[in-house]
């Protein structure tokens, strides 16, 4: 019996928008892959690049950072900082040998349950295609 590779995905979701969106997907009984483990943060701006790097070091194949749409941040500007930070980190990780596709930054609002389910499915498939990340 062969064991298929199941990507390990960690998702950092902001409490006010994307976590609520994920919650909505759940309450609406929308299916999405179970590969993702969700960590709730107050704002996507809370996500330190160190969290992402530690995830990769400890075995994650992909990391999702999700927050409110720019302009809608519960704390007004947190996600503007997220945007800048992770634009740079994606490039840097790719340069160091972790494909930039393994770090996704998405804006998901509280009402976008469907979108959340779809993007997790899409991300998981992409990670399955990329294969397990090599140990860094």
């Amino acid at each position, binding site marked *: 019996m062969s064991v298929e590779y199941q990507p390990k995905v960690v998702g950092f979701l902001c409490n006010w928008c994307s976590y609520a969106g994920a919650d909505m997907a759940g309450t609406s009984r929308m299916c999405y892959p179970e590969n993702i483990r969700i960590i709730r943060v107050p704002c996507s701006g809370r996500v330190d690049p160190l969290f992402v790097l*530690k995830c990769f070091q400890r075995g994650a194949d992909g990391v999702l950072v999700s927050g409110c749409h720019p302009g809608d941040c519960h704390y007004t500007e947190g996600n503007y900082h997220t945007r*800048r930070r992770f634009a*740079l980190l994606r490039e840097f990780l790719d*340069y*160091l040998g972790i494909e930039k596709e393994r770090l996704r930054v998405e804006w998901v609002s509280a009402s976008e349950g469907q979108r959340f389910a779809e993007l997790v499915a899409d991300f998981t498939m992409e990670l399955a295609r990329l294969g397990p990340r090599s140990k860094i």
Partner: protein
Amino acid sequence: MGQGAKSEMDMELIQQIRDKARNLLQEGTVEGVIGYERAGDGLTSRPFFAYDSSAVERLVFDETCTHNLVKYLLNKKGKRMAVVVKPCDSRAINLLLNEKQVERDRVFIIGVSCPGVVETNWSHKGETLQARCRSCQLTKPLVYDVLLGRETSRKAEEETYSDIREAEAESVATRREFWQEQFSRCIRCYACRQVCPGCYCPVCFAERLEPLWVGIRIAPEENTLWQTVRTFHLAGRCIGCNECERVCPVDIPLSLLNRKLEKDVKRLFAFQAGLDPEEPPPFATFKKEEMLEFEK
């Protein structure tokens, strides 16, 4: 230019530095002058702290003066110090002014128009200018209280980041292998951090126990996290003095990391560290309407 004319110019500059230092100490304007002296090999140089006018005779300045002396200002907070500063070092002063780590009126900046420095190791002096000097666009320090030496006639090469681009053109797997090999040699001496003017956290993330990010193990996995995060903490802050690469005892090519971020920060945020002490750094600010790559 003949060797004689060059060393004449050098002596003139050295005399100017000594005179200025003596003057500052005698008048009590500063408690100490941070400059360079001849190293033990009689050939290269090393940092030197002059606290009285007799000591200023030891001050020198030449193409072996590669050290960034600005870091030492962080050990001398509260004291009035003078420091000899090359154009690259002056960017470090601007960075520290911006981050409120240095009080402008407690530092007397002896600016030196530097034509570039060569690679140096103990008892070895290189022939050609360091790569960072060849592409240095500054002919004189950006900030100074006095400017000594003649403005350099060196023509700066353009910084094309060709080595970075070459690396970017390779496959992800090739790059991964390359960096794994480089980081496996790291012995976590932390010289890169200790020499860097941008690294001054009272407790470095690598020393933290809670949360435990790195730990004490000296192994490729931990080394990778150490190097990656230190570099990322300098994104938009590294002023390109390349001291980190110079001091590394196992020759890890750190400039390939720092300059990659420098290039991307320029491209994404139109920002370069240390040019203007008033300009907000790229990660302390944002533009509402910017659309970055991953959003397209």
